[in-house]
């Protein structure tokens, strides 16, 4: 059951469930599905809204400010792709626009030891590259711990 996709662990930008997320990131936008029935943001992208029975969604750009909910400072590379990236900070960010949207990403522009709970963070769009996947990169949202605004 080992994963065969040659560009793993880069995201599969063609996977239809998440393709709009990465397409938006490439344009410098943070996008989240909004339920067409009740209007609430629904994260993760799944078949049903968790607020109503809605099953159709429109990917909508949202403001990228949020707070740092929790994080891990990864020191051991759990995949060969991470060998040259450790130590790095990955965590969960709660967006100001709707606290039910909790996003997983890298926390950047920080000294890991100085991060504090619920501190403000702001989305930045940066290329994700892994030494194990030469000549490929995907622009993704990351969260800067040094917000500009």
């Amino acid at each position, binding site marked *: *059951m*080992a*994963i065969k996709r040659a560009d*793993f*662990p*880069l*995201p*599969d930008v063609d*996977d239809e*469930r*998440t393709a709009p*997320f*990465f397409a938006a990131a490439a344009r410098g936008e943070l996008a989240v599905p909004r339920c067409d029935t009740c209007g609430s943001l629904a*994260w*993760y*992208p*799944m078949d*049903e809204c*968790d607020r109503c029975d809605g099953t159709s969604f429109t990917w909508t750009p949202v403001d990228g400010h949020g707070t740092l*909910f*929790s*994080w*891990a*400072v*990864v*020191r*051991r590379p*759990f*995949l060969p792709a*991470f060998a040259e*990236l450790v130590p*790095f900070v*990955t*965590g*969960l960010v709660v967006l100001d626009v709707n606290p*039910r949207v*909790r996003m*997983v*990403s*890298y926390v950047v522009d920080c000294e*890991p030891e100085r991060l504090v*709970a*619920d501190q403000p963070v702001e989305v930045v769009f940066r290329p*994700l590259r892994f030494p194990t996947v030469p000549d490929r990169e*995907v622009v*993704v949202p990351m969260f800067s711990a040094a917000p500009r605004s």
Partner: protein
Amino acid sequence: MLEERDWGRASDLESIDGQAAIAGIGETAYTKASGRTATEIGAEAAERAIADAGLEPSDIDGLTYSGAFADFDVAAFHAHFGTSHEMWSSPWGGGMAWAATAPYLAARAITSGRARHVLNVFPVAWATQRSSMTGGPGETHATQPLKQNLEVPFGWFPQPVYFATIARRHMIEFGTTPEQLGAVALAARRHANLNPAAVMHGRPMTMDDYLSSPVLADPVKLLDCCLISDGGAAYVTTSLERARDLPRPAAVVAGVGEARLTGRNGHWSQQRDFTSTPQVLSAPAAFAMAGVTPADIDVLTVYDPFTIVSLMQIEDMGFCPKGEAGRFVEGDTLFHDAGKLPFNTHGGLLSHAYVLGIAHVVEVVKQLRGSAPAQVPGAEIGVYGGYTGAMASTLVLRKDR
């Protein structure tokens, strides 16, 4: 009675209190990489459980096993024992959360006349298989498209990273300290050192050892994590009446509960109540079925892949108020002979073996028989708390009177 939260719900189970009992247990050696297949390990555990129950393979007319890791199913049973009889079976058994709920399936099959002696088996050979897996035991997670695209690329993978993030939030919300997580690891190691079958037997650990162990994903250290092991175990469930005719003392199935996270909450990253497990919903249902309260429990084993998972389940099962498990487990609370809550008395996934919970159930049976290496004096009611993340389960066993 059944509680519901906006993030999960308990299953509505019929009461089976007193209908069935575990009459036989069997275990293989617990080791690092053995070179054996899980099917071989499962067959050995099955043989030993059947013999312990005083039965023959041809008496076993029901089998529960793991559908997700189907290493010992009906075909494997017949191939090993050279039998061909009809068997009732279910793939919703085996280890993890299902090690607690398999006796429920068995009790239902027995009372409805579909089976008389039901074997539940769970073998694992992950220590042997590890090098061929992507991210070790994280592999099954990495294959899920949402995780593969929204978590793995962002370094939020595998389990030590999830539980580091959960542990940090538990620290933020409740003031939980590294030393309190260490108390869980130390109790497990203390018990493993009393249990010659434990992989970490003969490897004492101090708080300094714990605190100075390598950080994998801060705040998770190496010694917060379970082992990776080969091994397996099995148990035979039959009617209480039948169990009383068999040679071993019956461990009566008194209560079973299970609860699942719903919708997006099934992803650790999206669980609304980030520092809670579905034990909040499962344990009260099982305790109600058995007619017990947390204060009645003499010995507790819980699925403990990481120290924080033990803390969360201890509080979610009601042994202390939510958020206070860190302070609760300090000192000797979890010790088999002196503690308020004898806990993972075989050593758990942390220090006994990573056989995904099946040995936890076997340990509870041993405790009620009075034959555990780290025996809790006078243990009469024992509980196993199972956990997979998206599901938790609870099994209450009672010594037959």
